[in-house]
């Protein structure tokens, strides 16, 4: 996540963090993390599908054919920008595999 630019007043205070990223509901932290990934991955897949629907609708209105899309060669700048977005995608969708889930679902709620 990007840092807030320095010198900007944000009117914030230090929060008391939840322990949700350490929760284990499925008896095996690996399974918990896989569920995190699947749900996140689903959001990315749907975003892509929805964007495609928008693109197809806009392109059709502009008279652009499917064949032109298939033949398109991205520029170096486009490749670089797309790779940056791919890395963000991976962090969101696959990052949860690295969570350390160990607090059982029945753990007492002691943090106040």
């Amino acid at each position, binding site marked *: *996540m*990007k*840092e*807030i*630019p320095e010198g*900007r*007043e*944000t*009117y*914030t*205070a*230090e*929060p*008391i*963090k*939840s322990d*949700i*990223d350490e*929760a284990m*509901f*499925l*008896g095996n932290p690996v399974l*918990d993390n896989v*569920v*995190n990934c*699947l*749900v*996140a991955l*689903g*959001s*990315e897949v*749907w*975003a892509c599908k*929805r*964007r495609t629907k*928008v693109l197809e609708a806009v392109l059709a209105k502009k008279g652009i054919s499917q064949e032109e899309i298939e033949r398109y060669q991205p520029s170096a700048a486009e490749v670089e920008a797309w790779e940056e977005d791919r890395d*963000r995608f991976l962090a*969101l969708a696959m990052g*949860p595999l690295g969570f350390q889930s160990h607090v*059982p*679902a*029945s*753990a*007492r*709620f002691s*943090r*106040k």
Partner: protein
Amino acid sequence: MLDRRELLGLSTVGVAAAVGMGSMLKSKSVLAAEAAQLAADGGLRGADGRHVRLGELDVESRQDYTKGYRVLNRRSYRQVSEDMFERLIQREGVDPTSKISIDELRALVDLDPNIGLMHKSWLANQRVTWKNLQDHYHQNADFYLSQMEAADKSGPGSLELLASQSALPDHVKHEIHIQPGGYVGDPFAGHLYHYGTNSFWFGTRGHNEQDEIHREVAHRMPLPKDGKVRRILDYGTGVGQFAMALKARFPDAEVWGLDAGGPMVRYSHMRANNLGIPVNFIQSVAEQTQFPDGYFDMVTSFIAHHEMPAQVTRQVVAEVERITRPGGVYYPLDFISGGTTSTPRGMFGRWYDHRWNNEVWSMEYHSIDFTAEIAKRDFRQVKDAQAAMRGFGIRHFERV
């Protein structure tokens, strides 16, 4: 230099239409016409009525997905999970009609991974909801901070922020609903809360992008017997939706929205200004408002009390007693409370929401009878009062 309304995609036409909206819901054709006008005017991605579209198509699409997932979870997974829980308690010899405590519930929840999967997937979806939004606002922090900074100094409503955040008590600093940073810790807490709760409303009561639910409830708020509503306070105002709805219902009243979260009141103020709604927002805890004695004709809160400790609820009621004028109305909305035990099925949902949706104070809230707490003070409960919102109690009180 770009005008703030241009940045938001809110045209003069759109703002004027919003101001004249009153308490009536707009027709679909009016909303469509507004959206078309806004889109034609440029800006970010335009707006649909008073709902500013999220800043990027992909962010909006992920939000659309998590909203849909929430509905799937509610309509399908939850039923399956509750059925499994019923079988589990039968297997464990627990009487489904008996009342059980949190500890008795805790002893059951780890026994069936299928139940865990339903809750796990719900929370994973909640996590994606917040992360998607937070990433967007932080990636465009300069832009969104500039919008709030410009709004801080403009009207029609006023904004009062604490000079220092260090005095905020710990009880307001939790990440309620696992919202990252909670209400005080992220500069875009108001943005996150607004779009996140749009999904919550859609999954539970229906669309609220046009503040439909808040406006409907505001329309049902009872008047003092003398009919005079000159000043209104909505504490725990969140992103100010109920305060703005009350202003629409009572256009001549001086309306205040109060919240402990600095980013929450900043966002509320900016949104109200963009819509041309003159509501005043102030950052403060509700138990110590600094308003004069007997200042308000009406005091409300919209589902705020289950997010504060029981003792603070008592302090807030005492403060409301102080600032409400004789004959004034006090009508706080929140869940029906009273009791630390419930049926296994009732405790099942309550426990998970408390523990893992990080509703830190909800069990304390349920441990007291909120309505009875108000009745202990100089308030008289109105007989045969109507519910302003189904499922959230009928706490219509008059200040003695």
